[in-house]
């Protein structure tokens, strides 16, 4: 569920059309900068009812999914 949500929000904020997302997709490759990333975290907080630390840095989708999944449980 978290994975699907992350992919959905990521696609909304990516500047790239038809982006193929896997766990290995990096935010850099997806055209996501630091402020897009904050917006993604804000939307995940809202839709999943959790609080996330903003100062964490992640390379790729898999790392973010693991981080968020740990908060949801």
């Amino acid at each position, binding site marked *: 569920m978290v994975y699907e949500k992350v992919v959905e929000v990521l696609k909304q904020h990516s500047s790239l059309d038809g982006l193929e997302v896997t766990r290995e997709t990096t935010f850099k490759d997806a055209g996501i*900068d*630091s*402020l897009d*990333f*904050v*917006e993604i*975290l*804000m939307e995940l907080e809202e839709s999943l009812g959790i609080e996330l630390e*903003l*100062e964490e840095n992640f390379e790729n989708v898999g790392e973010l999914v693991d981080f968020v999944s740990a908060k949801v449980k």
Partner: protein
Amino acid sequence: MNFQILGTGSYAPEHIVTNDDLSKMVDTSDEWIAERTGIRQRHISVNETTHDMAYQAAMRALDDTGVKPEELDMILCATISSDLASPNVAIMVQKMIGATCPAMDISAACSGFVYTLDVAAGYFARGKAKKMLVLGAERLSKMLDWEDRATCVIFADGAGAVVLGEGESYLSSKLTAKGDDDVIKIPYYVGLSPFFTIPGEKPCINMKGREVFKFAVNAMYNDVQEVLEQSGLTQKDVSYVIPHQANLRIIDAVARRMDIAPEKFYHNIERFGNTSSASIPIALDELNKAGKLKAGDYIVLSAFGGGLTTGACVVRWTK
């Protein structure tokens, strides 16, 4: 009784610093700055103090109204960057324009202008003022670490002013403060006391960009809705939202979440950068002077800043 806005004025230093200029000073680029902030250039003072800029904005606002300096009952200036600890910026403006009324500064960082309008409304409500001059003036360039690429590309100098007269056009307001000295902090120069033992911190703007972004988007989204509700208006009634010009990405993110058309969110950060308490009155002056405002328009002002403070209000334009 509260007030109506009789006229506006603004001033920014002549010297313009472009993103390309900054890319020669720190590791950055026009593309990087523009993408992340919307800023293309900013005005930076070479030989003008905060009160020099405030004076120019005040004169232009008085010219816009025909109100004479001696008619003013109070001068208030929102600022965190007075060049003098005393006298304050408002007193220097009083001296320079030849007014005789009381004058004081109010410190609430980037929310300062909206906070100050709310203070002004109190003077009108108590019948203590018939005409007031309210300013936002900043020389933030003196509070920047010009080697810190995260902040020196954002902040800038300028001043804006409004002349207020008696009226019923200040329809609603909301001020907040959140007791935080971690997300945005600007230490003072520590001073020369031989007795004081706490070591000084660099007297420059420290900011956690991500935290500010999140706080700002949530605060503006909530504040704009709340002041509209208080005044019995809907988002459809709004002619313009004038947000504090902190970062175009913040303005865009707020606009995306609201039912107010994005083009109604006025921005000039491209040309001015973030001038803290001066940003809203400069933007208001631009709209006024460009003839974009008509009598009866509902304008929402919304700001956030260090403190963490927020301030928003609805004003009906009567000019």
